[in-house]
């Protein structure tokens, strides 16, 4: 296939220069896209987190704090399924791509006009709906070299031609009949599509897998439990803390063979540092065994991994919650920032952990530099930074036979999958999160597949202050909140922040909000058709207009009460989340709409001749650095 630079809008002059630097295409193969460079082009949004550093920051500033109040709907589109809409839209070369919840149809739309170009409908197995634990969500697609990649709930990774919507390859990576499913948005790094699995509660053994982007063939697979050979731990593995060093810890930190059904699935986010050539991601909790049947740290569950993307070989690892008792998947996003810490600039990884502490690591070594609570936390007293371990409040451990009240945070943690953003202008992180505590007790009976068992009654409720969610600006250097907006419901949407110093996020009670990135003042809000748990993005259309896009459609773990008719009278439905969400149906029903907003023409200052960002310079510049 020949590259078609003319298909690109005229403004990517700089990028064309970049392409020419890459040299002529050899033979029939197209010149490879430089995904890192494309991610710096703020007219597009080519990967789920905007860039490899996962900052979800856009250099666009047509919409700014002064004019965002005039924002209005430009066009909308329905993906046709009223389930949880967690998916991030991608914008590549003037086309917006969005993948819906089960059955995971992929739509390509003209990013400027909303014209539907094509849709691709995978043959997703209907039985997979019964298997997914937490609504049948999908978190989005990825792009590279003319192809769109995404996962289906029934464990296929699919490559589709970005221009035509034709399937290029389709790789089956797991079996829904064994409890496996896939919900995460892939990341493409150096020609490899990185995907992970879901289904820890079905005994699934977690993995991250790299697929060749041209063929779908597995290049490597790194398991989250088991012997070093399976976890891809070798000579190059240099964890900072001694407790992570030793042979086959993914076996020896479990009772015999228990690691085989140990969980540690990978359904969140992958970040990449091209300079260090390391990818970073987190693994989920230890599945299926009750805690007293899995004494030990249960490595490598709830762990941040740094790996070589070429081979999968692990460089370092850090376990956030040894011997997890809380269902604390550490799949949350990892932001790669360069921050002034002490007397120098440190290359760090910032991870907002489930248990409520903001972790800042040296991303080269895995050394924990700081861990500061960002929400009400009583279950973990502190983090011993020197030794790299949490100090747990044993009195609040949920054990059989005990009734424990006021555990903070509740099972979903202070923050779940919903990704944060970082602005190099304000030097602040923008963090959507929940604010829930819980009561916990053994209940007499649960029942599944013909078998009664001992259940737990988990009753979640608003944390201190009576609010259930928060959108906060966090200073990762000082370890303090710059400002916070308290929300009635958990803030289950992602966010984006721009050079216009505006941050966007959505609420479950159907508000899409723009706030001043400096002050937290709400500058604009729009009432959508359904609650928002999606991920906003921004891009510039072929008409020179800056657009902001967000999926609205409530669901996910906290939202199934609104879209799946859970009984709000049963407080411990949806693993206890129903108790905290009983009033949600009074605000929203399910939805399936992509909203795209823009300023009215009258409010737009004519765009300058040059792009407003560094995207066209051809220099690889880390958005996380100062502009």
């Amino acid at each position, binding site marked *: 296939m020949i590259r078609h630079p003319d298909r690109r809008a005229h403004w990517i002059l700089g990028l064309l220069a970049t392409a020419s630097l890459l040299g002529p295409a050899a033979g029939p193969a197209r010149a490879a896209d430089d995904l890192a460079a494309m991610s710096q082009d703020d007219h597009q949004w080519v990967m789920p987190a905007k860039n490899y550093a996962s900052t979800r920051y856009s250099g666009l500033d047509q919409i700014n704090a002064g004019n965002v109040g005039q924002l209005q709907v430009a066009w909308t589109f329905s993906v046709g399924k009223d389930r949880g809409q967690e998916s991030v839209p991608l914008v590549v070369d003037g086309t917006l791509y969005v993948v819906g919840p089960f059955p995971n149809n992929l739509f390509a739309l003209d990013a400027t006009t909303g014209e539907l170009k094509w849709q691709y409908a995978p043959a997703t197995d209907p*039985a997979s*709906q*019964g*298997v997914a*634990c937490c609504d049948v969500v999908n978190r989005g697609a990825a792009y590279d070299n003319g192809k769109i990649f995404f996962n289906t709930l029934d464990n296929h990774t699919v490559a589709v031609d970005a221009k035509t919507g034709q399937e290029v390859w389709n790789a089956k990576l797991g*079996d829904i*009949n*064994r*409890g496996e499913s896939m919900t995460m948005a892939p990341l493409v790094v150096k020609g490899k599509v990185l995907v992970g699995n879901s289904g*820890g*509660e*079905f*005994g699934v053994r977690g993995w991250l897998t790299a697929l060749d982007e041209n063929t779908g063939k597995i290049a490597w697979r790194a398991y989250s439990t088991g012997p070093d050979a399976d976890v891809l731990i070798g000579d190059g593995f240099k964890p900072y803390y001694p407790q992570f060093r030793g042979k086959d810890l993914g076996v020896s930190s479990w*009772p*015999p*063979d*228990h690691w085989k*059904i140990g*969980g540690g699935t990978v359904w969140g986010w992958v970040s990449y540092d091209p300079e260090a050539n390391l990818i970073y991601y987190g693994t989920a*909790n*230890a*599945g*299926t*065994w*009750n*805690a*007293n*049947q*899995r*004494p030990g740290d249960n490595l490598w569950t709830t762990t941040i991994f740094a790996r070589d993307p070429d081979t999968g070989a692990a460089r370092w690892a850090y376990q956030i919650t040894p011997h997890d008792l809380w*269902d604390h998947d550490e799949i949350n996003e990892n932001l790669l920032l360069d921050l002034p810490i002490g007397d120098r600039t440190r290359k760090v990884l910032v991870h907002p952990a489930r248990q409520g502490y903001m972790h800042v690591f040296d991303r080269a070594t895995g050394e924990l530099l700081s861990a500061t609570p960002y929400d009400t936390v009583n279950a973990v007293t502190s983090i011993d930074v020197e030794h790299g371990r949490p100090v747990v409040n044993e009195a609040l451990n949920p054990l*059989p*036979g005990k009734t424990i009240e006021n555990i903070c945070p509740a099972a979903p943690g202070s923050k779940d999958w919903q990704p944060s953003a970082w602005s190099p202008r304000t030097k602040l992180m923008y963090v959507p999160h929940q604010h829930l505590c819980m009561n916990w007790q*053994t209940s*007499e*009976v*649960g*029942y*599944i*597949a*013909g*078998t*009664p*068992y*001992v*259940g*737990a*009654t*988990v009753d979640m409720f608003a944390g201190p202050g009576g609010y259930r969610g928060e959108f906060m600006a966090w200073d990762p250097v000082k370890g303090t909140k710059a400002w916070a907006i308290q929300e009635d419901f958990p803030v289950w949407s992602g966010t984006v922040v721009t050079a216009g110093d505006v941050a966007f996020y959505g609420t479950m009670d159907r508000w899409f909000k723009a706030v001043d990135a400096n002050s937290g003042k709400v500058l604009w809000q729009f009432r959508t058709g359904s609650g928002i748990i999606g991920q906003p993005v921004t891009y510039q259309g072929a008409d020179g207009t800056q657009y902001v896009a967000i999926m609205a459609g409530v669901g996910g773990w906290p939202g*199934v009460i609104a879209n*799946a*008719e*859970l*009984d709000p*009278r*049963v407080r*411990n*439905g949806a*693993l206890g989340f129903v108790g905290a969400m009983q009033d949600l149906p009074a605000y929203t029903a399910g939805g399936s709409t992509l909203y795209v907003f823009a300023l009215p023409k009258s409010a737009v200052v004519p765009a300058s001749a040059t792009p407003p960002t560094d995207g066209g310079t051809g220099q690889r510049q880390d958005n996380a650095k100062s502009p």
Partner: protein
Amino acid sequence: MPSRHKVLAALLVLITGPAMAAAEPAELRVCADPNNLPFSNAKGEGFENKLAEMIARDLDEKLAYVWWAQRRGFIRQTLKAGLCDVVMGMPTGLDMVTSTEPYYRSTYVFVSRADRQLALDSISDPQLRQLKVGVHLIGNDGFNTPPAHALGEQGIVANVVGYLIYGDYRTPNPPARLIEAVAKGDIDVAAAWGPLAGYFAKLSDVPLAVRPIADTDAFPSFVFQYDIALAVRKGDQALKSRLDEVIDRERPQIRALLTAYGVPQVEEPATGLAGAAAP
């Protein structure tokens, strides 16, 4: 055109008449797992299938099934979604449904090869520290089966083997792998829910001993015996009352059915296990 009107009217009567005149028998709509013997399967071979037929006959209603794997969300997506009106077996005391009167009570049991002569029935038996013990694992929504917890509380961990209750759904009756593992000698003993254990022990070519788990008083947090009832939608008192009457009328037949399937039945109240009837 009056005549044409008459013809039309007559046709309408013909089309709609019979349905109105002789109403279809009401339907007993049951949601069931198509692949989970001894409870139910799509061929109607489970004791819950037979019980559903018995109840439909008693009520003079037509039996209709909605098949759905019994996993998390089963009740939400079937009974609560209005796809059906009855689920044939659920423990009493579950919040999400209204239960009928229980129609049997069973117990967790130990299953071992008869030729081993282990005589295992106490959850505190020291043999459990040496033997390879299989348990079902439920998932991570809080908890697991009572014997799995009780073994864990005693520090019996390293010799415990977990079998996922969900198993591999491509194979028949996935929870049965635990009992088959005993027959094959993969494990020495299984701690399993009685109906499943009793049924597959009965079918096993290798003679298996099924003994109710005793001495559970030491673990007051965990219940080892459960009353099982039919479940209807929360608040559907009318159907509950009708089904309660059927259970009353059919009690001897129900007991015979369960016995034929090898379901260990214990008497209420559970003051001990004297009433336990191992097959």
